[in-house]
């Protein structure tokens, strides 16, 4: 057990001892075990790597590492090799012996595991050569590749907690001014200026204050906060300690979604490590600051991402929002001044303190400074986490970084801002992504989910999906939200199932306005955004459903039929064998047919057909 560090100089000496013991030229193989890669078998790859390296007498502790998310989830499991910067994609356990012998020991590149740029056909050896990476500006995600998230030593060796020392030199007032001047705005969605929030909490009356980290990343399709907490937990924690110093808080909470068990484990461990080293607890680094942090798990309620609902949940109550006539900065958790920021916001703080507000302002736009992480998912070639300066256009992100739409399909829409955001059509692809522009276009930044939709996505179905989500997540406090959202979902169901008329659309618009006007919290007031934004940009698709009883994207079950193209079918009988309804018949080696009265449109026949002969229209 290491003793508590007595002060900033002790931390510097500790860091120097760590770096002296580490050879910067030593080769290290890092395996990404972030959510995406883990689901693809990365842990097995890492175990194989350790076993294989050991066989060759390699010091595993020093030359292999399991890291957090490296971002390029599409190509996982990912593996990167320092100092050369080689990146291998789709690594399987079977590839490990060759990687150890040729790369780890020999310093050679295994060509077949490199990413090939589809545009040029050229294999890319390093991150810089891969288009997905070289168009990004990775400030927050950069260190994910360089550290083992379970090791505070790795973080400190990379310069970790030097921002905290810098903050102590500056003093709380100057730190707060620097954060204010940086223009940092809340990454959780609302985009409120962080420095002003801190100031309000610092100036509020009361002797006990709290800082809280919102890690209840509830937006489906968004996982950047998870990636930061899993991959670089100390950066978030250091941000919170600096915040507590500037605000004068003694206690902090990290409120994490229970659906992220690894994130819970990593941040809990990080807190324990920081406490052991004297970076938390009484007299942090020998200073006057006493501050400690607890982890609190969410219960699986989307509404708890709303600040006042989260406070209720932290206090052991149902997550029901309250009217915020008095700000949380004055009366928050247990009725005391509370400052709540999102994970990514906190992670920006050490960088701002260390590198200065001017550096931060040099990235992004005038009113939206810095970088933002987006999770680029859905119908896009290169799914993953993308960090770009604010103000990058949707086109830059989806086509430049994401490599466009798979299968030669057409782009239809991109959904930003989570369930409460909106869908933007192709005409809006050149919109710069910043807080204010997205709102002006009827969507919002949200926490950074970016879901790409192609011509096979039905916008009525998407709106119905979000309404169903939000209706089931409504806390039930306000009648308009509790009842109105279910009613809206049913009306969208009428349209999707062929019962809708133009009056249904008019009724939806009227009811949406009512819900928006009469709900208390942001869940209710913004819940209608998905339906209103799709009606605004994709009205033709709604009209096709109500006027022609047709779903142009062939998604809405009631309006489509399955059939088998006799020219493509070779009579292999696979579909007939797998059909749960016995709806498919035909002779061996002869074209089969589907009996429409028996078909339940489950799509299994389309999944199993080796010749792509099943048609949906």
């Amino acid at each position, binding site marked *: 057990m290491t003793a508590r560090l007595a002060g900033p100089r002790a931390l510097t000496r500790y860091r120097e001892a760590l770096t002296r013991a580490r050879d910067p030229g030593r080769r290290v193989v890092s395996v990404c075990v972030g*959510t*995406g890669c*883990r*689901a*693809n078998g990365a842990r097995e790859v890492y175990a194989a790597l350790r076993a294989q390296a050991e066989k060759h007498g390699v010091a595993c502790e020093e030359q292999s590492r399991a890291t957090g998310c490296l971002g390029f*989830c*599409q190509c*996982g499991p990912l593996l990167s090799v320092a100092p050369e910067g080689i990146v291998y994609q789709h690594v399987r356990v079977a590839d490990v012996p060759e990687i150890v012998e040729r790369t780890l020991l020999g310093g050679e590149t295994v060509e077949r595991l490199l990413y090939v740029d589809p545009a040029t056909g050229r294999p890319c050896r390093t991150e810089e050569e891969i288009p997905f990476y070289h168009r990004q500006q990775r400030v927050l995600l950069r260190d994910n590749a360089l550290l083992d998230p379970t090791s505070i030593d790795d973080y400190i060796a990379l310069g970790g907690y030097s921002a905290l020392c810098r903050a102590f030199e500056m003093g709380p007032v100057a730190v707060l001014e620097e954060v204010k001047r940086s223009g940092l705005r809340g990454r959780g969605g609302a985009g409120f200026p962080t420095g002003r929030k801190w100031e309000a909490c610092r100036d509020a009356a009361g002797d006990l204050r709290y800082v809280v980290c919102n890690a209840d*990343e*509830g*937006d*489906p*399709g*968004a*996982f950047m906060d*998870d*990636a930061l907490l899993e991959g670089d937990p100390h950066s978030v924690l250091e941000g919170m300690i600096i915040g507590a110093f500037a605000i004068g808080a003694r206690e902090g909470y990290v409120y994490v979604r*229970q*659906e*992220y068990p690894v994130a819970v484990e990593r941040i809990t461990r990080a807190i324990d490590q920081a406490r052991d080293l004297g970076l938390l607890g009484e007299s942090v680094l020998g200073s006057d600051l006493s501050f400690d942090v607890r982890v*609190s*798990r*969410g*219960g*699986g*309620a*989307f509404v708890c991402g709303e600040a006042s609902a989260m406070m209720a*949940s*932290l*206090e*052991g*109550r*149902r*997550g029901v929002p309250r009217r915020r006539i008095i700000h949380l900065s004055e009366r928050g958790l247990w009725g005391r001044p509370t400052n709540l920021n999102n994970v990514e916001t906190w992670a920006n703080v050490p960088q701002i303190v260390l590198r200065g507000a001017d550096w931060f302002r040099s990235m992004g736009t005038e009113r939206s400074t810095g970088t933002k992480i987006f*999770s680029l*998912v*859905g*119908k896009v070639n290169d*799914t*993953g986490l993308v960090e770009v300066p604010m103000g990058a256009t949707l086109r830059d992100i989806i086509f430049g970084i994401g490599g466009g739409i798979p299968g030669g399909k057409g782009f239809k829409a991109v*959904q930003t801002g989570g*369930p409460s955001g909106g869908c933007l059509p192709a005409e809006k692809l050149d919109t710069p992504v910043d807080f204010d522009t997205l709102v002006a276009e009827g969507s919002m930044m949200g926490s950074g*989910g970016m*879901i790409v*939709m192609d011509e096979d*996505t039905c916008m009525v179905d*998407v709106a119905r*999906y*979000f309404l169903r*989500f939000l209706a089931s997540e409504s*806390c039930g406090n306000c009648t308009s939200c509790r009842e109105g959202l279910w009613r809206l979902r049913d009306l969208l169901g009428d349209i999707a199932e062929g019962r809708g008329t133009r009056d249904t659309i008019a009724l939806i618009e009227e009811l949406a306005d009512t819900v928006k006007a009469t709900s208390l919290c942001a869940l209710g007031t913004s819940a209608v955004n998905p339906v209103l934004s799709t009606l605004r940009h994709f009205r033709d698709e709604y009209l096709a459903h109500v006027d022609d009883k047709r779903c142009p994207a062939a998604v809405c079950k009631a309006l489509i039929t399955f059939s088998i193209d006799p020219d493509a079918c070779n009579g292999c009988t696979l579909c007939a064998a*797998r059909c*749960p309804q016995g709806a498919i018949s035909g002779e061996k080696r002869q074209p089969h047919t589907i009996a429409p009265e028996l078909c*339940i449109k*489950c*799509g*299994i026949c389309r*999944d*199993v057909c080796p010749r792509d002969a099943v048609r949906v229209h």
Partner: protein
Amino acid sequence: MSADRERGVTARELRRIAAVLARYPQGDAGSLVNALHDVQAEFRYLPEAALCEVADHLGLPRAQVYGVASFYQGFHLEPRGEHTCTVCMGTACHVRGAARLLETIERDAGVGAGGTTPDLKLTVEEVNCVGACAIGPLVIVDGEYHGHMTADRVSRLVAKLLGEGASR
């Protein structure tokens, strides 16, 4: 009171609950959600007696504990199946056909989302997003992730889970 409390649980189970609650200071209302998680981890659901024990330990009205346990999706008040099949209903999975997967599972298992088969073999549930969007649509079986799922493959998976019960 004690008879009421012991309903449905054995003395050994009561001791397990007590061991979990010992991690939390008595009367600490702020620990409620965390304590419920830990108790649930023991039983895979929250038996009525456990709710009463939590309430007593944290000094909270039983109504509040029940209110919280029934408010959050993460808590279950009914016994759960031996296996859990969870369909990710995140947006990225949705646009890649997650709804069709759920329908297939519901049809094959004969229970709706949130339900458990009568033989307590399989619980079917939805989750809003687990952040593995790159490999969607995603189905999680007993904590193991199955990416790029199709209706056909999920149907085979469910058959295996249900069949396992029959052969035992």
